[in-house]
């Protein structure tokens, strides 16, 4: 691949590729990621669609928060079990709402650490009126918000709605 064909203008995701230079030598070039520049929006759309469909199931008490986060973070049962430090059959039971209800808080805390979310976020869905892209990792800073708690069909799950003034 020629260096000129490898160059992509995308600062948010840089990679190093090895290419043929103009002088025929081979060497590294730091450039933007081709797939991120051209397909990141599609990735985000698919991610959002999956998120939305799982959140509906979560609110309808069809799946547990463990199932939600495990799927969103692309982990298998055995991989999640290894990370939390419990047996796979226990993780399997925690994927269902009735199994999740029997879980100890200490175990829930371990799951939250693996998923890298606050424990409270295992039991709530945070959204805004403008769009539902607001998630715990969202870094938007705002000090003027309304917060409303909305119950769902799942007795352990509430929606925390945050709205700007």
């Amino acid at each position: 691949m020629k260096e000129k064909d490898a160059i992509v203008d995308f600062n948010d995701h840089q990679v190093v590729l090895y290419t043929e230079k103009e002088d025929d030598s081979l060497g590294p070039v730091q450039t933007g990621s081709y797939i991120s520049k051209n397909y990141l929006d599609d990735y985000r759309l698919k991610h959002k669609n999956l998120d939305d469909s799982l959140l509906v199931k979560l609110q309808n008490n069809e799946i547990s928060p463990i199932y939600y986060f495990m799927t969103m973070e692309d982990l298998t049962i055995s991989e999640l079990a290894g990370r939390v430090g419990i047996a796979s059959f226990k993780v399997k039971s925690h994927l269902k709402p009735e199994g999740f209800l029997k879980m100890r808080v200490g175990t829930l805390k371990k799951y939250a650490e693996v998923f890298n979310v606050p424990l409270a976020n295992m039991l709530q869905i945070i959204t805004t009126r403008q769009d539902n892209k607001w998630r715990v990792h969202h870094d938007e800073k705002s000090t003027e918000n309304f917060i409303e708690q909305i119950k769902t069909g799942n007795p352990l799950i509430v929606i925390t709605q945050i709205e700007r003034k």
Partner: protein
Amino acid sequence: MSDIQFNHKMAAHCESGTVTALLNHGGFEITEPMVFGMASGIFFAYFHKMSNFTFPTFVVRNKPGQMRTNIEKRTGAKFKTASYKDPIKAEKALDDLLEQNIPVAVQVDFFYMDYLPAWFRVHNNVHFITIVGKKDSKYLVSDCYFPKIAEIDAESLRKGRSAGGEMAPNGFLFYLKSIPKKEDINFEKEIKKGIKRAGYYMLKIPIPFLGIKGILKFADKIEEWPKFARDTEHLSHEIMKINVLLEDQGTGGAGFRFMYATFLRQASELLNDAKLLEMSKKMMEIGDGWRSISVFAARIGKNRDLGPERLKELSEMIRERAQVEKVFFTELYQLVK
């Protein structure tokens, strides 16, 4: 507080990049392609069903850790290694080394490296970064996949270093202990050993999903991928991940084939070997073929054009890679036998 003057730069791949950076920092000048090639980094393995993967997948390099151990054998450089199951002991060991101004490579789960964008981070226990200092409660990180020195707080680094699961980091760290004199290294012998080992793993290893057999397995099995997908969008995501695995996850492009071509070019110049130069050109062309697969996978995934005919077309492209690589590695192996 440490004061390590570390020359950070991005690299093609985390393990080869980290090993190269530590060697260079220690005064042993070597390029990343040379490390990669001498350490027999090039490989292929296809995993159709594994308990730690949610979907069929493949890898294009040798087992994590082997680049470091192989480059030790090839050059005589020595790395000191240690593992700590206890995160507090792991942190203390790291801090003690930083106090001595020693840059330290650590193994982490990529997911917790929060200086990277959230959409970029996945659970992957075999990412290597170099810790080059500590400022208050934040560590200074030289990550090959990030354009500048990053900062990570102690808690995030602790999570990354103590993650469980397959190939768990277990607080693993390594740092450079000693370097050899370049004049003491028989580069011709060691380069050929590196090539021979890579050739063995691509051609001769008797396991049906490894090496050339692995590429063929991939070609065969990709037409079955739809039955593993939840829906079309899931299949689209996994097909497009082929591009990520070949180009973006840290390979130097085309599943490490471009970096291997560069190694062969550098080896040909070092050894004044015209045959290796010829093989370098061939490997670059092979890489171009893999790049075509990457672009094709991204396009059909985006367009949701994932019917049997399209997957068959993709399968044929992959099968062709297996055929050309078999010819290539057979020729290369004969050169160094």
